[in-house]
C-alpha cells in the first residue's frame, strides 16, 4: 500500500494555492461530506479510528462526539502551536498544503455542528501564517467559508490567530487562555474543552495533522482508511526525524513501520562511523530509547509497551559522540524556561533539576544526588494541571535510569578535576 496520503504531491509547484489544490482533486470531498448527514460524517471519523496526532493520541472522532448537541455557540480550534523540540511536521503541512487543512477544518466543523473556527499558529511561523491567511482568503472568495458553505445549511467563520512565543500554548487549555487574550496558563480539567472551552463554549481542539487527515477519511471511507497502518494505530503518520542523522526531515510512513527502517532506511542513520546512543521517539518529552529498541514497530501501542510514547511523532537521534549529561541539561533548561509557573511541582521541579544537573557538571555532586533527582521527577509526574512538568520528568528520569553509570562516571571525573584545581589554587 502506498504510504502517501497527506504528503502526496507535497512539492508540486502551486499546491499552496486554491487552483493548485483543486488541480489535485482538492475541495471535491467537501460537497460529498455536505451531502451526508452530520452524524454520518461523525460516524466515519469514529470508525476510522484516527488518533490525535498532536501528542496525546486520543480518538479524534470520539472527541468530536463528546461535544453537546443542540443550538449553542460551539468552537473549533486547530492547534498549530507546534513547539515540541524535534517536531516540524505541521509546519511543512501548512506551508505546502494549507487548503488540505482548511478543507479538513470545514468538514470537522460540519460534523460537530460548529460555526466558528480558529487556527492558533505559533508566532515564530510567520511565513507559514502568511500562507495560511492567503489560503483562508481564497477559500472565502470561493464560497468554501462564510455563510452557507456551497449553498448548504453549514456556515463557518475561520480566522488565523498568531501566538507570540510560548511553548505552553501548545497545551490545549493554555492555548484557549492565550486565544482569549490572556497569559497562556493551563486550566484545571475537568471541565474538558469539549464541554467548556473557548469563551466557556464547547470546543473541539485538534492538531493540524489530525485535521488534515479528515478529507482523506471522508473521501476514501473509514473502511479503506483502517487498512492503512496497524490495529489501534490506523493511517499514516508524518514523522519528523532530526538530530544526528544524515537525511533529517519529514517522512510520511504507515504506522507500524519498523523504527530501524524509518531511522536508517529513510533518514540515513547517524553519520559514518557513529552509532546511535539513544533516541527520543516522540519529541523531547518522551522517555528515551536505546539502540536495543530499534526493531520496535513505530506505532502508539508498541512505543508505549517499550516504555516510551509516540507523542507528536518526532524522532530525535543522539549518537555516541554526545554526553548524556549535556542532552539532559538542554532538555531540563528548556522546560525550566517554558514552565508557566502556575503549579509548584513543575515550576520548582524543573528549576531544581537544572541546578542538580549543573552540580554534576561542576563536580559538586554525590551519587545520592541522582536518587534525589529521580525522586524529584516522581513528585512532578501527575501532580500538575498540565503535563509540561511530566514532559521534563519522563525523559530525565529515563536517562538517569538507562545511563546511571555514565552520570556517576561524570560525577567522579568532574569531582577529581575540581579537587585538583582546588589543590593547585592552594599551592
Amino acid at each position, binding site marked *: 500500500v502506498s504510504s502517501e496520503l497527506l504528503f502526496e504531491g507535497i512539492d508540486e509547484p502551486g499546491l499552496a494555492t486554491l487552483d493548485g489544490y483543486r488541480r489535485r482533486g482538492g475541495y471535491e470531498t467537501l460537497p460529498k461530506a455536505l451531502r451526508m448527514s452530520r452524524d454520518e460524517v461523525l460516524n466515519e471519523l469514529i470508525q476510522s479510528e484516527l488518533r490525535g496526532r498532536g501528542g496525546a493520541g486520543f480518538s479524534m472522532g470520539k472527541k468530536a462526539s463528546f461535544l453537546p448537541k443542540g443550538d449553542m455557540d460551539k468552537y473549533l480550534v486547530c492547534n498549530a502551536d507546534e513547539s515540541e523540540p524535534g517536531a516540524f511536521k505541521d509546519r511543512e503541512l501548512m*506551508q505546502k498544503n494549507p487548503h488540505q487543512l482548511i478543507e479538513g477544518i470545514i468538514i470537522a466543523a460540519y460534523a460537530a455542528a460548529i460555526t466558528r473556527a480558529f487556527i492558533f499558529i505559533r508566532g*515564530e511561523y510567520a511565513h507559514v501564517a502568511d500562507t495560511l491567511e492567503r489560503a483562508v482568503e481564497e477559500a472565502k472568495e470561493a464560497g468554501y467559508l462564510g455563510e452557507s458553505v456551497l449553498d448548504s445549511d453549514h456556515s463557518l467563520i475561520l480566522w488565523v490567530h498568531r501566538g*507570540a512565543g510560548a511553548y505552553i500554548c501548545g497545551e490545549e487549555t493554555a492555548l484557549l487562555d492565550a486565544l482569549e487574550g490572556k497569559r497562556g496558563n493551563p486550566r484545571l480539567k475537568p471541565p474538558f474543552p469539549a464541554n467548556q472551552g473557548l469563551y466557556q463554549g464547547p470546543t473541539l481542539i485538534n492538531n493540524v495533522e489530525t485535521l488534515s487527515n479528515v478529507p482523506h477519511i471522508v473521501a476514501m471511507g473509514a473502511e479503506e482508511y483502517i487498512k492503512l497502518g496497524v490495529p489501534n494505530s490506523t493511517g499514516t503518520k508524518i514523522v*519528523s*526525524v*532530526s538530530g544526528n542523522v544524515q*537525511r533529517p526531515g*519529514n*517522512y510520511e510512513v504507515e504506522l507500524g513501520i519498523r523504527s530501524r527502517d524509518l531511522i536508517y532506511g*529513510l533518514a540515513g542513520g547517524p553519520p559514518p562511523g557513529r552509532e546511535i546512543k539513544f533516541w527520543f521517539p516522540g519529541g523531547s518529552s518522551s522517555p528515551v530509547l536505546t539502540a536495543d529498541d530499534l526493531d520496535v514497530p513505530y506505532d502508539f501501542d508498541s512505543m508505549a509497551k517499550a516504555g516510551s510514547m509516540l507523542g507528536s511523532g518526532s524522532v530525535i537521534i543522539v549518537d555516541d559522540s554526545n554526553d548524556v549529561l549535556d542532552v539532559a541539561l538542554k532538555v531540563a533548561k528548556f522546560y525550566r524556561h517554558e514552565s508557566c509557573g502556575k503549579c509548584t511541582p513543575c515550576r520548582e521541579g524543573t528549576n531544581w533539576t537544572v541546578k542538580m544537573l549543573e552540580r554534576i557538571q561542576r563536580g559538586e555532586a554525590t551519587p545520592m544526588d541522582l536518587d534525589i533527582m529521580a525522586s524529584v521527577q516522581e513528585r512532578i509526574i501527575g501532580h500538575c494541571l498540565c503535563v509540561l512538568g511530566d514532559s521534563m520528568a519522563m525523559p530525565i528520569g529515563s536517562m538517569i535510569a538507562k545511563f546511571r553509570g555514565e552520570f556517576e562516571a561524570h560525577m567522579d571525573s568532574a569531582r577529581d578535576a575540581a579537587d585538583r584545581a582546588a589543590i593547585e589554587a592552594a599551592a
Partner: protein
Amino acid sequence: MTEIARFSHGSRVPGWDEAVDLDLDPAEVPDPATTEVPDDLRAEIEGYMARYPDPHSAALPALTAAQRRHGWCSPEALEQVACVMRVTPAYLAAVATFYDMLRVEPAPPGTHAIYVCTNISCSLNGADALYDAMREAAGDDEAFEVRAFECLGACDIAPMASVDGTYVGPLAPADCVRIVGQCRAGEEVLPERQLDHRKSADTLAREAGLK
C-alpha cells in the same frame, strides 16, 4: 539578622518595573480624550477586535502590531493598545511579559530579530558555536536583537536561525557576518538557504527510490 539584599526600587525581584511607567496609574483604562493613538494602529487593532466574539482576544495581535511600530512594548505602546481595547495597561503588561516574542525592554523600531535555535536537534549539530558567532557578528549594534531561542520547528535544517521571521539553515558560524551584513543592507538573507525553497525529505526519498 542578616540583611536582605534589595534592588534600588525596594524589591528583591529584578526588573519588575522595567515595562511600566510608575508615574502613570496602571490600573486605570486610558482616557481616549487625552491618549493619542496613531490612526492606522487604531484601525488595525479595531480590525482584530472585530474578529472575535470577545474583543479581549485581540491582545496578542494588537501588542504585536504596537511593537512593530514602537520597537518594543513600551509604556507608551501599552497605553495606546489599552486605550483602544478598553483595558488597563497593567493587564497588557501581564500579557506582554509572558510571551517570548514581545519585547519588554527598550529596542528601536525596525530592530532585526535574529533567533538562533539552541534546542536539542540544533545543538547536536553545533548551535552553541553558531549562537556565539552570531552575537559576535552583531556586536553591540542596537539594531539587532540576537537571542538563543527555543526550538523553532525547523530541525530539518539544523542548525538554523530565524532572521526577521525568515528561516535559514543549515548554517555555519562563518555565515553570521554575511547574515548581519545582509540585514544592514536591507537585502534578502541567504536566499539559497531559506527553508521556503526546500524540498521535503519525503519527496527526496521517493526520488532516490528509498520508498
